[in-house]
């Protein structure tokens, strides 16, 4: 994969990432979530589907570390199993966003002028479509499922990636080494895969990290509204809406899934911020890790779900 290679060839990018407190936090959180999702495939303290009416609404303690819900299911197990859904949605949305983003950015940067300009206008228009609106369009027709989340975030964020990557792609396009490549007889496709994409990869991966954070938020919001995961699926959003019905009587239980979502989103956001610093050679070192990046479009309308 050329994208990964381009970063690894930069000496010590991971060490630079690790040196940032935000980077460490992001890496650890993302690793923990991924590991939890993996472990939950083989083992959870209880079965996430196993109900036990006698033990409903158990308070946090032993053996139910985070307590149980209205049907006596173990909340910790549900959250662990929900991590799987979160990972699937984040990765799925990331892949869709990558494909759409690269395609639109390439069309907007490398083609004939009129196509280029029309794509740019189209991207400007599409960017105004909130992810939630896209999700509603899809789910009005195909009904609610995790695909709705993956596609709506993928499209919404793909457009965003295209908008950020396009100028970067054009900048690299006019650089000397691309010209040299062309002079050496590379076709434009070879030039794209060998020189252009690896050079915009850092910008891209940073965007992807933020996009995945948005996917996690969107999964929660859309599943809550009934457009996302089906109620039978273990998902943080579904769990949140399940527990919300009893919020006046059992307020504590609703804290856990929300905490899981917040932590994951925070981890991915900070990872994106830190990756940006670690991979961008032009950023000065008098940096401020908590300061949101200025040049990048960070806030995608309509994904604060």
């Amino acid at each position, binding site marked *: 994969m050329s994208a990964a290679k381009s970063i690894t060839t930069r000496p010590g990018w991971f060490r630079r990432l690790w040196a940032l407190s935000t980077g460490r936090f992001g890496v650890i959180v993302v690793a923990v979530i991924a590991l939890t999702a993996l472990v939950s495939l083989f083992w959870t303290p209880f079965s996430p589907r196993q109900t036990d009416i006698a033990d409903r609404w158990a308070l946090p303690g032993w053996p139910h570390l985070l307590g149980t819900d209205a049907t006596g299911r173990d909340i910790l197990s549900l959250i662990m199993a929900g991590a799987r859904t979160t990972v699937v949605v984040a990765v799925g949305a990331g892949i869709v966003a990558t494909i759409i983003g690269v395609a639109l950015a390439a069309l907007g940067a490398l083609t004939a002028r009129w196509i280029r300009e029309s794509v740019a*206008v*189209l991207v*400007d*228009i599409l960017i*105004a*479509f*909130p*992810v*939630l*609106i896209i999700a*509603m*369009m*899809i*789910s*009005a*027709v195909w009904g609610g499922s995790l695909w709705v989340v993956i596609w709506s975030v993928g499209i919404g964020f793909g457009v965003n990636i295209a908008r950020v990557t396009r100028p970067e792609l054009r900048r690299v396009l006019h650089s000397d080494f691309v010209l040299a490549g062309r002079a050496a007889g590379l076709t434009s496709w070879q030039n794209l895969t060998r020189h252009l994409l690896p050079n915009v990869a850092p910008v891209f991966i940073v965007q992807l990290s933020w996009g995945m*954070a948005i996917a996690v*938020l969107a999964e*929660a*919001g859309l599943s*809550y*509204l*009934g*457009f996302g995961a089906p109620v039978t699926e273990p998902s943080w*959003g579904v769990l*949140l*809406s399940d527990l*919300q019905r009893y*919020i*006046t009587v059992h*307020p504590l239980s*609703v*804290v856990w*899934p*929300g905490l899981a*979502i*917040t*932590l994951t*989103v*925070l981890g991915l*956001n*900070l990872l994106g911020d830190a990756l940006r610093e670690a991979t961008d050679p032009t950023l000065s070192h008098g940096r*401020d890790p*908590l*300061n*949101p990046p*200025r040049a990048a479009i960070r*806030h995608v*309308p*309509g*994904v*604060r*779900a």
Partner: protein
Amino acid sequence: MIRYALTRLALLIVGLVVASVLIFLTLRVLPGDLAQLIAGTNATPEQIQSIRDELGLETPLWTQYIEWIGGILRGDLGTSLLTGSSVAAEIAQKASVTVPLGILSLLIALAFSIPLGVVSAMRRGRAAGTVLSVGAQTLAAVPVVWAGMLLVIVFAVWLGWLPAQGFPRAGWREPGLALRSLLLPAITIGIVEGAVLLRFVRSATLQAVGQDYVRTAAAKGLTRNQALVRHGLPNVGISIVTVLGLQVAGIIVGAVVIEQLFGLPGIGRMLVQDVGNRDLPKVQSELLVLTGFVLIVGFAVDLVHRIIDPRLRQAESE
């Protein structure tokens, strides 16, 4: 300026057309029979046929589209498949909840993010600045639904100050009650959106502090704070205007989720129900109204930005 406004207006119109085509096609290009899908599996052939007639499904796609758009241009947003009532009338009625909710949310977001954002930038590297930054970064990662639930737990369940759910049946004829039931939802949207805005204000302020004109002002004898307030903040203000469009989009989305959580009879809740019921003619008009609103706000924001930013005015005259 006029030239810019006209170009931007053209872009807005193209945007509205593209949006309407996308919404229309997504809701029409379906595997299988749309009428069958809407009617469900238990429908009689007569019911399906009547839906087909109602939607004009047997005419070509582009006539259907023209008819829809023609209606919208005349102010007719169509009728609901389920209830037969006018979509425009329903939106207008539900707007009496959603619009005040949106305005209140925006005011709350601005009221807390601007001062705190500036403070967070000025106190950068010190305890107060770090706390504010970490807080905003964390708040920006909180799902709106969850923030709403936590606020309900604290202010409705424990303290009992504000209602946890609902909107008075009498609506705005009981302004006190209506406002009270909108307060918690608006605070929820306001703080989560405000956290995003706070980070933006902070970075705009930091940028302004580093500008030459602020240093010059300080050099000619103003204190750092005077220089910032007099020369820096107007520029921060201009930057805030540029992201207002995004904020409005965020608030609309927040309202959809929050109306559901708080059981408010607004546009968002209606839309969620209509999507669930597959009331496609209604959904299509509602989505266009919302998207159109976002596009129009973006247009207005760009124009205002152009007018208030002296640098852009100057660029024009050169």
